[in-house]
């Protein structure tokens, strides 16, 4: 039976990319335990609109956890505390009457804030444009049954392909890296014979410049990517191979010279400009904002079952 609660919120409000933002407190009454988290925001917004205030902007579309539109850092965790689901699938029965919940946008230089909780994730599109596909034009395909694919590989490819492109992995990574997103697409296509002819080019274009940050990343997510998606099979497995390729490509040195990680697609002048103007210093905020696992790709044991107490210092449990 649904119960009614009062929930206190502290929500990040920011009028535009180049504006300063702040956490604004709200109280919402008559919150049903059956409501989804986004419906709580709907309820608050209806109230704000009738009162003549501006509603909180947030992205959402399918509300079934598949489109990847929605997402916010809830009590310091990307998509909140529930494992394996997007924010739209988090329901209020996981909170208690009188709880205070802190809601922030994805915080990453790669994702400039558009307004309130809405961020610009076009960096993901640029990564896919750099090689997240098999180059086959309409009409070129042979019969679908012509090539057999081991069932195990098809299933592993499907695991990787299940990524919903929400950006939570970037928001959760201490370095705000897109390595998890990128490697999921690379793994999917490398596991299938259709993706083989281009696998090297794909990795070089979409991913390799990330190697300048690989040591940093290794400490966090790389091991999991490596293990789950067998990326050694992708010929990007060893540090040496990656560095050699990068050097050959002439891009690694350039990245190192710049002194920080930049993927070619994340480094467009347009994006850099906006990132420079972003009021949130991503690197600083990350310290208090520990990584959670990707909600869709991994059922990591590293995530707390409940909201951490005393935000924002709550840290996830490291196994």
């Amino acid at each position, binding site marked *: 039976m*649904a119960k009614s609660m009062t929930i206190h919120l502290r929500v990040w409000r920011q009028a535009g990319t180049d504006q300063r933002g702040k956490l604004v407190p709200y109280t919402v009454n008559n919150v*049903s335990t*059956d*409501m989804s988290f986004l*419906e709580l925001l*709907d309820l608050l*917004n*209806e109230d704000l*609109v*009738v009162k003549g*205030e*501006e*509603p909180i*902007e947030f*992205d*959402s*579309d*399918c*509300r*079934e956890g*598949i*489109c*990847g*539109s929605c997402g916010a850092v809830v009590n310091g965790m990307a998509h909140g505390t529930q494992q394996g689901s997007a924010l739209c*699938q988090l*329901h209020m*029965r996981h909170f208690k009457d009188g709880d205070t919940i802190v809601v922030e946008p994805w915080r990453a230089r790669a994702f400039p804030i558009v*307004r309130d909780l809405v961020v*610009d*994730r*076009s960096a*993901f*599109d640029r990564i*896919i*444009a750099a090689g*997240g*596909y*098999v*180059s*086959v*034009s*309409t009409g070129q*395909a*042979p*019969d*679908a*049954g012509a*090539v*057999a*694919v*081991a*069932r195990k590989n*098809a*299933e592993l*490819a*499907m695991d990787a*392909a*299940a990524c*919903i492109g929400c950006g939570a992995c970037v928001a959760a990574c201490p370095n705000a890296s897109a390595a998890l997103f990128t490697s999921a697409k690379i793994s999917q296509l490398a596991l299938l014979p*259709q993706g083989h002819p281009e696998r090297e080019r794909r990795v070089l274009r979409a991913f390799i410049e990330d190697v300048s940050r690989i040591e940093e990343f290794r400490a966090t997510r790389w091991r999991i990517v490596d293990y789950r998606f067998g990326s050694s099979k992708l010929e990007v497995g060893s540090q040496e191979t990656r560095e050699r390729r990068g050097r050959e490509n002439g891009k690694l040195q350039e990245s190192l010279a710049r002194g920080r990680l930049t993927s070619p697609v994340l480094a467009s002048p347009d994006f850099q400009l906006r990132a420079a103007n972003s009021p949130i210093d991503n690197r600083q905020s990350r310290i208090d904002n520990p990584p959670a696992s990707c909600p869709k790709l991994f059922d990591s044991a590293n995530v707390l079952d409940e909201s951490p107490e005393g935000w924002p210092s709550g840290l996830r449990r490291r196994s």
Partner: protein
Amino acid sequence: MKLDSKVPEGPLTEKWDQHKAQLKLVNPANKRKFDIIVVGTGLAGGSAAASLAELGYNVKAFCIHDSPRRAHSIAAQGGINAAKNYPNDNDSIWRLFFDTIKGGDFRSREANVYRLAQVSNNIIDQCVAQGVPFAREYGGYLANRSFGGAQVSRTFYARGQTGQQLLLGAYGALMRQVDRGKVQLFPRREMLDLVVIDGKARGIVCRNLVTGAIESHTGHAVVLATGGYGNAYFLSTNAMNSNVTAAWRCHRRGALFANPCFTQIHPTCIPVSGHYQSKLTLMSESLRNDGRVWVPKQKGDNRPADQIPEEDRDYYLERRYPSFGNLVPRDVASRAAKQACDEGRGVGETGLAVFLDFADAIEREGVGYIRDKYGNLFDMYARITGEDPYRTPMRIFPAVHYTMGGLWVDYNLMSNVPGLFVLGEANFSDHGANRLGASALMQGLADGYFVIPYTMGDYLGRESLPAVDADAAEFKEVDAEVRTRLDKMLLIKGEKSPRQFHRELGQVLWDDVGMSRNAQGLKDAIEKIRSLREEYGQNLRVPGNAGYLNKYLEFAGRVADFMELGEVMARDALQREESCGAHFREEYQTAEGEAQRRDDDFSYVAAWEYQGPDKPHILHKEELEFENVHLATRSYK
């Protein structure tokens, strides 16, 4: 107005090939001189934009989301049909054609549906080549499963995420062309009007949703692939941003809207839990393979399910349809659930739900079997409702899911406005009065990959299309109209938010233009919608202004269009004095309460013409001719 379907002459099986042989071509050097606007980047729009760019046209692709990959095609679960006959179960192009036209209750064009079945196999080839990870057998070959409305296994699937995987394939193809510079991508843009010059579609006016800027874009042709209008009902399985605005704007510029009353209600969705509800979630129809649907025999019996003994339960589908039982088609199952709830026998807090019970299957096959087969669906159900469906029966209720109606198109997928092509769910062409499962993905990709690349060339090769400028008077005029409309909504400063209006509209449509309809209810609905529109003009409140990201302003414009559409849906349902497919008129049913089609009088496509904001629409009819199939009555008893 004479509606020319342009269906080619000749035997059904040869029409498409003969037609292709007649179509004009554009040589490669000339293709790059043409700009094509594609609005929408779901399965139909994404595949069209990619395929047209591969051919060499310059494509401008617009989407309402932050990325093309978010389009609602992504939420399709079950699968995609094709006549591959890999299981050797005697499937064929003919059978796929026949099942689809019969499933649509004989209200679609033979030639279009046959072509759909013909190209279905190419779609699977294309998607596999793109790296779509379809389910496979241990031998490494593609797996198939069966779906409603067919006696063969012809559905290809990628777990319960087929739509996602097909869309990511089309999205990859699209982004490849972005990388090549052949597609210019315009995300977070909402098309707000069509620009017609010398009677031909030559561009669009859209709003940049981030900056609020009103932009004009020119092209030699416009391809609309903006999905269906199920969100008119407010609560549906559609995504929050799914809307009719782009299509409706084209309609107001002269494009006919066909069969608006054909809206599909899916029987197995998670029921509404409260007034705050923003959308409904579908539970795959495959659950009805093992679940038994029931309600208590007595009204107002609110004992928990496990305390209601067998003799007090009514397994109404098994009782009424003994040969199909729980596996009757979607429209039949939906109506039966509504009847049970109308009789006061619904379950749950709201009384608007029926049980879908797996207890027998669990006892027969074991929990492990059920978990393997439906585990992800059971998890989704548990997450949303907080109940454990392994222990207590699921509660389900029908919800609006898909719209068969849409903008009228000819065999070339061109609307009656030259140069305006309409693909996917946005057009009306292939599903008649009811769509079969796993056919929406097939149609979207057929239109985008294998039809529009051929018919577009014919249009561009045939017509003389002088260059137009975004500064032309026609563009300026439309631009000004768009701005005026936005300003008007902001200036009302009333007391009700657009969502409140939308909710009220949805309730009217659900009550009177929903699962079953009657003349009085439909007339009432028209009146209620009119007074709602009047109130909207005086009491709407939109916060902020048009100069930045303002979702409530977007909603407000869409709700206005849904209200105009809602009235036409009711009028269309009123004039169609028969029951067919998803359209059930209470006056036209058999003694047993089954749908009664009236082929002699209503075997036509109803295409509505817009006359002006306060003038009634004009009805045009395209008679449907059936030369190859016999019009039979569906029976599931």
